[in-house]
């Protein structure tokens, strides 16, 4: 047996993970079953319209941002893959990759610089004599934040996928008389589909759990992570916060896992989420 003599090597990781994640998570899940006014917190969460609205907002916003991210990332990825040698290509790719390191709080701040009270867009509107436009501190700002975070990741995944398309297939299609649109729909899109699923799921999952960005943009935005935070800190309603965390965690994990099953192992490697 290859593992002989090695088993104890896994002990520190196993102990650490069990003590600080597995058991605490089990405790969190059981806390969600604690009764408030005679009903488990899970039942409160499932029957209260407030939480449903919060969940609905979160899912809707995340879904929309993921869709737009993929719609924008497909042409960018195709362009970068089909033009491997244009002047400034390295710069363009470097600039797209630079924001990968920004955490959610910083993304939120950048959105404020774009659409906040002293934002670029507002200043530009003022300069041409229009009413200053402010859109950073609500759902629109949050949507742009999700987009900002997701775009570099999705472009990376889709550029790699588009580079993997055999260009002789496209040339064959062209020789056989297929127009650009037919070639895109019949050859490129099916080939890109796993990468699109992977990138979309990754955007969706990160957006669902986003907290730093929401926190920076405005604590009044009604999305699930903010609701959990408010239940915990402002109302000290720990069973409900626990139940909501478990629900959010389960939904997020299920989406990632499902997409991974569809897109194959490449989903994880490319997503990093």
């Amino acid at each position, binding site marked *: 047996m290859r593992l002989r003599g090695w088993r104890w090597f896994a002990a520190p990781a196993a102990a650490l993970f069990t003590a600080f994640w597995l058991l605490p998570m089990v405790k969190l899940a059981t806390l969600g079953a604690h009764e408030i006014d005679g009903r488990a917190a899970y039942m409160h969460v499932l029957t209260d319209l407030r939480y449903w609205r919060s969940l609905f907002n979160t899912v809707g916003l995340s879904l929309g941002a993921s869709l737009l991210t993929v719609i924008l990332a497909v042409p960018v990825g195709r362009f970068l893959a089909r033009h*491997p040698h244009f002047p400034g290509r390295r710069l363009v790719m470097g600039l*797209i990759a630079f924001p990968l390191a920004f955490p959610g709080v910083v993304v939120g701040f950048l959105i404020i*610089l774009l659409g906040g009270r002293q934002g670029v867009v507002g200043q530009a509107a003022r300069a041409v004599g229009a009413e200053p436009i402010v859109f950073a501190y609500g759902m629109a700002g949050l949507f742009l934040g999700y987009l900002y975070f997701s775009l570099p990741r999705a472009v990376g995944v889709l550029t790699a996928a588009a580079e993997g398309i055999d260009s002789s297939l496209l040339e064959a299609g062209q020789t056989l008389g297929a127009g650009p649109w037919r070639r895109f729909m019949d050859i490129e899109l099916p080939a890109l589909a796993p990468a699109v699923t992977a990138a979309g799921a990754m955007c969706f999952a990160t957006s669902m759990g986003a907290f730093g960005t929401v926190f920076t943009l405005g604590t009044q935005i009604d999305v699930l992570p903010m609701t959990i935070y408010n239940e915990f800190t402002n109302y000290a309603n720990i069973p409900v916060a626990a139940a909501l*965390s478990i629900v959010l965690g389960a939904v997020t994990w299920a989406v990632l896992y499902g997409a991974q099953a569809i897109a194959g192992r490449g989903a994880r490697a490319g997503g990093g989420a």
Partner: protein
Amino acid sequence: MSAPRAATQSRWDSRLGLVITLLVVAFLIVPVIFSLLAGVTQNYFVGLKSGLTLRWIAEVWALYADTLWRTLIVALSTLAIVTLVGVPLAWILTLMRGRLARAIEELITLPVAVPGLATALALIVSWGTVGGLRASTAFIVIGHVLFTLPFMVRAAGATMQGRDLPALDQAAATLGARPIVRFLTLIVPNAAPGIVSGALTVLTLSIGEFNLTWLLHTPLTKTLPVGLADSYASMRLEIASAYTLIFLVLLMPLLIGLQWLGARGSRANTFPSAPRATSL
């Protein structure tokens, strides 16, 4: 070289691609440029004509220097623990392969897949009342270790598998070397590239981590991203920008290091490997 490949994209197709690419680049970079400028501008509302200054940087230093040091301590402690715990685990998983190994990898990735809020709440309800843990920086380190461990395991494991270390190890075992000796003299040196790239990822993630840290910190254990959120909420735009500038400068060496490692390992033309945050 490029002509025959580009020919498969029609002219309007290429142009549309270029326009969308440039728009995406603008959306990503314009706010960063304004942030960098705001950090060194006397008065952002007046604009650049009010003059450049290092005053805001100095003010951030006076207000928040402690968060910078704490962040470095947390990141280095996290890295030390993750390396000690994660590299041996990566080796075990390399030897195991198969379903069980994948399931274990999946399991330790859960703290990344599940929103940070959930992990932080779970830690607080289970360990928040134990001794002085809640008030100490160690509490934050625990959260960061959980969050970064899978990245080290994956990066180290990838090199271990790629170099067929199990076969080499078998040979060393037949020659009579004990496991610990083989691990330190054969496995770790051979897996070094993966461990180094894993280490840079761990440092980047720990330095930027906010979602867990915000719930785990106390007023006396603020880290840099916690300070950033604080400055975004309560300081003038110039100070918030200067603070962000310091944060980006701190990330720079890690960014360059990972790019360099990525460039050595792959074709020059592929998408750059950059350190990436994994939660919003």
